[in-house]
């Protein structure tokens, strides 16, 4: 026993090893601290991080195409748009089955809008096709019904396709989701698929039962195609169903049976359906995820041989990113130049006066952003206050008034004004902590005013400049209202395009990609700042 106490771990009063006991106490403390910040953490997570993560995820998400066109995206994989051959009949069949379901669910136009971002014109051919889907395969429906009135009855189809267990319970108020029989799926795969898709759609959409509704025309088309492929299909069934199917097989093989080509039907809806480019676009964007939005955001496009730079006339985002960076830096620099003396004066005045002047600095905060921006319009425009004064003074000729707005100059002036308080406040609070006796000491040791300022005062105020610059710069690159109003064509930022894609074009994927790139650029700049200046060298007071 005594041996154990000497070689074993040190024990706490209650007999547990001291190390564990300490760790537990610490863990308790950490848990308590965590519980204190938990409300804030949860708040930030729920209202900030999750929405942003969701938005960023949209920049790669592309499941709408496969979800809406499951058969088409499979059928199109074997197609080579460069081969010069027309899209095959099988692809159009798959498209017809997909579209008839999508049109019932009113999703065909959504996928059309999605693909229209990549290939202008697709949205209208999807819209038109959706309208005509009800008639697709009507010719087969008529012939089947002419053959035997039983082909009009819902029961015929339930007997043919439905899982017997499902059929036994179907028809009630709480009908379970349609299940197909394995026999049908084996011998009539296309028709079973089409029927199941229809049955589930009417169950989901309208709460109808397949036992009571007449199937739509494309199912007859699928049935016809399956029977052509597999004339022995009737053998797999029994009773009335087998007899009906055998009669159908005989009729189909007869010369007077009329057929139609799905491709022709689509070409009749819009001849653009025959365009290989449409099918290339569907194939290119058939994945669950896409890098298409990011390529687009970097002025690239998906060509036949991988990503390629867009034609020069269509490149815009590179220019805008670069411009946003350069102008934000210009704004930051002008804020430093204008704000530094103000902060210095505020920090060196008696606190009573400083507080009054502080209100003047804060005053712009209490004025609406739009009002301030509009005021700059009145000041800067060609018939505006500044130009009028200059003309009156004779400095500028009346017919050569200065252009100071709707360009980069206007944006820089207005945004410098708006963001100036964010620069002055951190600088002021840092300068307040600088002991004035250092300056006096430097001067008493023989330094000139300039040397004393530059060697003694300025280095101590750098953390304030750093904090102000980060604030102003990061706010500036995200601004869009002011540049939109006073920026004209050359003074707009990337955020204006992001706002456009969010609220006007509804291309949220592209907006998310642009936003992600902007976020990455900011983080890179932050990292670079940390490497060069050091982030611990930033003080807010």
């Amino acid at each position, binding site marked *: 026993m005594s041996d154990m106490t000497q070689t074993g771990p040190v024990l706490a009063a209650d007999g547990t090893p001291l190390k564990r006991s300490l760790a537990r106490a610490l863990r308790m403390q950490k848990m308590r601290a965590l519980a204190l910040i938990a409300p804030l953490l949860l708040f930030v997570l729920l209202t900030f991080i999750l929405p942003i993560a969701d938005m960023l995820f949209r920049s790669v998400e592309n499941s709408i195409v496969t979800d809406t066109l499951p058969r088409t995206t499979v059928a199109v994989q074997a197609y080579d748009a460069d081969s010069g051959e027309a899209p095959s009949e099988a692809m159009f069949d798959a498209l017809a089955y997909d579209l008839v379901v999508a049109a019932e669910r*009113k*999703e065909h*136009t*959504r996928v*059309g*809008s999605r693909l*229209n*971002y990549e290939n*202008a*014109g*697709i*949205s*209208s051919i999807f*819209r038109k096709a959706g309208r005509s889907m009800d008639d697709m395969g009507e010719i087969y429906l008529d012939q089947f019904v002419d053959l035997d009135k039983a082909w009009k009855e819902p029961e015929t189809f339930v007997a043919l396709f439905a899982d017997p267990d499902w059929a036994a319970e179907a028809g009630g108020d709480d009908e379970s989701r349609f299940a197909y029989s394995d026999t049908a799926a084996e011998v009539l795969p296309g028709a079973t698929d089409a029927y199941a898709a229809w049955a589930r759609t009417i169950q989901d959409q309208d709460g109808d039962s397949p036992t009571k509704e007449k199937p739509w025309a494309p199912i007859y088309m699928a049935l016809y195609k399956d029977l052509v492929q597999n004339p022995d299909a009737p053998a797999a069934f029994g009773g009335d169903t087998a007899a009906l199917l055998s009669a159908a097989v005989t009729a189909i093989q007869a010369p007077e049976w009329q057929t139609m080509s799905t491709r022709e039907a689509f070409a009749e809806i819009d001849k653009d359906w025959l365009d290989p480019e449409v099918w290339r676009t569907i194939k290119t964007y058939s994945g669950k995820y896409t890098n298409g939005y990011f390529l687009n955001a970097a002025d690239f496009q998906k060509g036949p041989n991988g990503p390629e730079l867009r034609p020069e*006339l*269509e*490149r*815009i985002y590179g*220019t*805008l990113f670069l*411009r946003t960076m350069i102008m934000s830096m210009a704004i930051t620099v002008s804020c430093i130049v204008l704000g530094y003396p103000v902060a210095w004066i505020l920090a060196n005045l008696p606190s009573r006066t400083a507080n009054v002047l502080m209100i003047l600095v804060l005053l712009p905060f209490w004025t609406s952003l739009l009002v301030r921006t509009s005021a700059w319009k009145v000041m800067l*425009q*060609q*018939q*505006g206050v500044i130009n009028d004064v200059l003309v009156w003074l004779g400095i500028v000729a009346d017919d050569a008034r200065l252009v100071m707005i*709707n360009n980069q100059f206007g944006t820089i002036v207005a945004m410098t004004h708006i963001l100036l308080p964010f620069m002055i406040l951190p600088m002021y609070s840092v300068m307040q902590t600088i002991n004035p006796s250092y300056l006096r000491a430097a001067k008493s040791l023989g330094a000139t005013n300039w040397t004393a300022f530059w060697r003694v005062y300025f280095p101590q105020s750098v953390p304030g400049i750093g904090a102000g610059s980060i604030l102003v710069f990061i706010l500036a690159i995200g601004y869009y209202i002011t540049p*939109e*109003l006073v920026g*004209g*064509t*050359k003074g*707009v930022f990337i955020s204006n*395009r992001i706002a456009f894609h*969010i*609220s*006007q*074009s*509804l*291309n*949220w994927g592209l907006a998310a990609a642009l936003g992600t790139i902007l976020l990455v650029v900011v983080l890179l700049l932050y990292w670079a700042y940390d490497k060069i200046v050091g982030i611990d060298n930033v003080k807010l007071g």
Partner: protein
Amino acid sequence: MKLRNLSALAATTALCAPMAMAADMANEMTLVSWGGAYQASQVKAYVEPYLAMHPEVTVIWDESSAEATAKMRAMSEAGNITWDLVDVVASDSMRLCDEGLAMELDHDEVLAAAPDGTPASDDFGDLIVSDCFVPQIVYSTTFGYRTDMVGDTPPTSVCAIFDLDAYPGKRALQKRPIDNMEWALFCDGVAKDEIYDVLGTDEGVARALAKLDTIKDQVVWWTAGAETPQLLADGEVVMGSTFNGRLFSAIAEQNQPIGMLWDMQSFDLDGWVVPAGLPEDRLARVMDFLKFATDTQRLADQAKFISYGPARTSSAPLVGKHADLGIEMAPHMPTDPANATNVHIYDYEWWADNRDDLDAKFQAWLAQ
């Protein structure tokens, strides 16, 4: 026959069922519109009369029509639809319909017939550009010019915007390709009915942009409709495009020295859409309001307050005088025959297809 049944049904419902129906309807309705003079005209013409008939109903306004498409998509994704009836331009209604965010309507069933019995779908005619859309007004994007800055020869053709010799000075144009590209091609000598064929090719786009290039340095690009009247009033621009109602109020209500240039005015529509997926009681209320607010008399009444043409053919003869100024409104309507001698017909379907593509090209051109 069908019609008589319908009106008989309507009469029965009106006589026997108002109490029963009122119980099934929500008593709160959120309407979304554009704010400003336009929303005021809606309040005066049909919201106030409707509330007078149904004192139990309260109306909440949301002035978010400019971002309606984005907000409706966000609401639908969040599964919480707070709007009941949304005022949007025609192209947005197509987009909302395409995305399944707006409800498809059977116009003859949900809207009132004209007083002479013409069904709603015929009364609105071609203006029903999408199955989800109930048109209210026809407005146009057209030009105003400073009467004191054009000398003795006021412009009579839209091509004056490209004529820097005759009309020096800045011009205000909307910062989007729609309309501007068409005007540029028209003034570059393309026949009116071939504009969209030409614009559909890369060469056509380059041609339109080249024409706009000739005045690029002299253009102030606007995004809000109020900007052009302000720029004109300040003398910043000699001419500029905007919505005709904005120019009307600058000219008639504020007596600014501005003249109207109706040549090649671009017709556009504004109307209601109902968000998809409303609960039944709210839907019943909205449908009741919608039927009232878009009948012949109500649409004609709206023209008393703003110079936009009613979308129903049957409303046109009922358009009277301005409610405050007492001037005849008919000559200020974009649809007035004297104003509509040369009209540019905006092709919704074409722009729905090509808007994203052309917008990218246009913005790239602007940024150069």
